């Protein structure tokens, strides 16, 4: 039986701003399916975002929603969480928002390990401002600010997250909704800072500039650029070279910030 998405959506805010072929709506539905499984009270959920196409998502969701400044969603989100640790805090960010202007907040949020889940809607481009190169634009790919192809190496969101201290790290493609559902659910259940690098094709600004075709062709290309991490052991280094693993990539357990601060309060307020 299909679930009733509208119980979590602000119907009056539709239609959304996303272009035909954009993957953001697919990821948004994965988030809603995960939340439907968790049965969290809607009044307890806070969805925070920065600026960009992906960051418009909270406006469509019937929770406490906070659309902040460019790159700063994590700093607002941590303030919410610390002030009221009972709230369930989810952050939605784009690749430019999370990894460029918000890069410093990203690594420090990973380091602090608050019980917050960050979902990066990663489409390798600045969509809202018209297709400029982002920190995850692939080397050689074009953006309106990289008309001859990007000469820089892109950030790997997951490697950054793991190196910085996140306790759950996963990557999923929008074409594989089952895998996307699974990692988002696990990320939300992880007691600590979780990062999901959710790939989403931008047909309008990435696909057209790079002649990658329509949405289905772009999704096929993302599949070719990635491999399932569970098959990694059976693959040769040559087969994996230059490709991104998808699936749950890292999980560990270490003290969560708000719990530690709670203990500190108990210790010093006696």
């Amino acid at each position, binding site marked *: 039986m299909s679930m009733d998405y509208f119980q979590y959506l602000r119907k009056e*805010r539709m239609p959304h701003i996303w272009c035909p072929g954009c993957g953001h709506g697919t990821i948004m539905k994965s988030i809603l399916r995960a939340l439907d499984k968790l049965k969290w009270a*809607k*009044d*307890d959920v*806070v969805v*925070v975002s920065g600026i960009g196409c992906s960051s418009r998502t*909270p*406006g469509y969701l*019937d*929770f*406490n*929603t*906070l*659309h*902040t*400044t460019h790159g*700063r969603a*994590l*700093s*607002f*989100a*941590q*303030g*919410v*969480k*610390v*002030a*009221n640790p*009972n*709230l369930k805090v989810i952050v939605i960010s784009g690749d430019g928002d999370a990894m460029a202007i918000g890069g*410093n*907040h990203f690594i*420090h949020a990973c380091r602090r390990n608050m019980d917050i889940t960050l979902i990066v809607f990663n489409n390798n481009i600045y969509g809202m401002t018209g297709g400029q190169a982002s920190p995850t634009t692939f080397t050689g790919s074009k953006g309106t600010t990289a008309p001859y192809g990007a000469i820089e190496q892109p950030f790997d969101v997951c490697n950054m997250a793991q190196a910085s201290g996140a306790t759950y790290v996963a990557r999923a493609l929008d074409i594989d909704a089952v895998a996307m559902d699974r990692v988002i659910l696990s990320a939300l259940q992880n007691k600590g800072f979780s990062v999901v690098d959710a790939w989403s094709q931008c047909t309008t600004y990435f696909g057209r500039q790079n002649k990658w075709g329509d949405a289905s062709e772009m999704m096929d290309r993302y599949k070719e650029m990635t491999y399932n991490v569970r098959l990694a052991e059976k693959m040769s280094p040559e087969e994996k070279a230059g490709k991104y693993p998808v699936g749950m990539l890292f999980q560990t357990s270490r003290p969560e910030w708000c719990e530690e*601060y709670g203990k*500190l*309060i108990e210790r*010093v*307020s006696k």
Partner: protein
Amino acid sequence: MSAEATEKKAPVIKFLAGNEACMEGALAAGCRFFAGYPISPSSEIAEKMSGRLPKLGGKFIQMEDEIASMGAIIGASLAGAKSMTATSGPGFSLMQENIGYAMMAEVPCVVVNVMRGGPSTGNPTGPSQSDVMQCRWGTHGDHPAIVLSPNSIREAFDTTVQCFNFAEQFRTCVVLAMDEIVAHMREKIVIPAKEDIKIVNRKKPNLKPGDPYKPYEADASLIPPMMNFGEGFRYHVTGLDHDATGFPSGAPDNQEILHRRLVDKVEMHKDELFLFENHRTEDAEVLVVAYGSTSRSAKRAVEEARAQGIKAGLFRPITLFPIPEKQIALAASHAKKVVVPEMNLGQYRLEVERILGPAVPVVGVHRVNGEPIAPSLILSAIVGG
């Protein structure tokens, strides 16, 4: 240092620096969340907060920079905590975008800016009053501004309480502009008993569960009542132009209504915001307008001028913005000359000139060398032709 100073039923006598008194005022006002980043000469506020807040069940977090500190206090305030940060010039510059967000989204919070020499890294440990106009106009766009500036340790306590009360009452970001001298000098302070401190909390809408809530629908006061996140009234907050529902709206009518209301909600209540001191201004033929630590030199200069038979007086705005224009004009009603000493190159002097017009000559006494302005310099300007 005891944790319970803010809970005392009787007044407490202490010997504090301005930064410490500011922290005590914040705790007394109910501040239970502080996010900050180290910067001279404000760091003692963060240091003391990190020790005191957890003892009161409050939260302290050191962020990765001032931008994040400002974001965190806005988030915490939306979740229901009275929140503040403290910084100095360069950090205050970094906070400006999110200060504008707090004003636009009407999230109560307090920013302490301990003024040091600028621009840029400037003079990190020297006093200055050169952020006065940044306090007023630092963030982009038309916006309201409430800025207080104390000149003593007791007043650092009182104005901090006032900043929180104004932030809660007006649903905006309020700035405490302390200069480095007030922040670091020590004086005896009597911290009033808890029951003698007036505390204002944000106004809540009168709603039952399930009632529709429009977070930006204001009554005649122009200040919308506020629910916190997690209280059962899910709503949207954005820095985009929005209508009464909180959702983005680019409609020209909505934008006009929003921007005018944000400014007018402070403008129409400004008489409640004016804190000031008149010292011998009744018959003052030479009026000195001074604030912060400079006003203490100015008062001495006024006394010395009076001893020489010159009818001098001091008007001291404690509320720098909105500007107490009528009060300045009234204090200057007998003035043949007005002297404005400032540790900057004339930022508030331009405002005084605008208020008084060309009929009264306004003389600036300005110093930007990291030294306080001595009474003798102000006296020379009072006496001189």
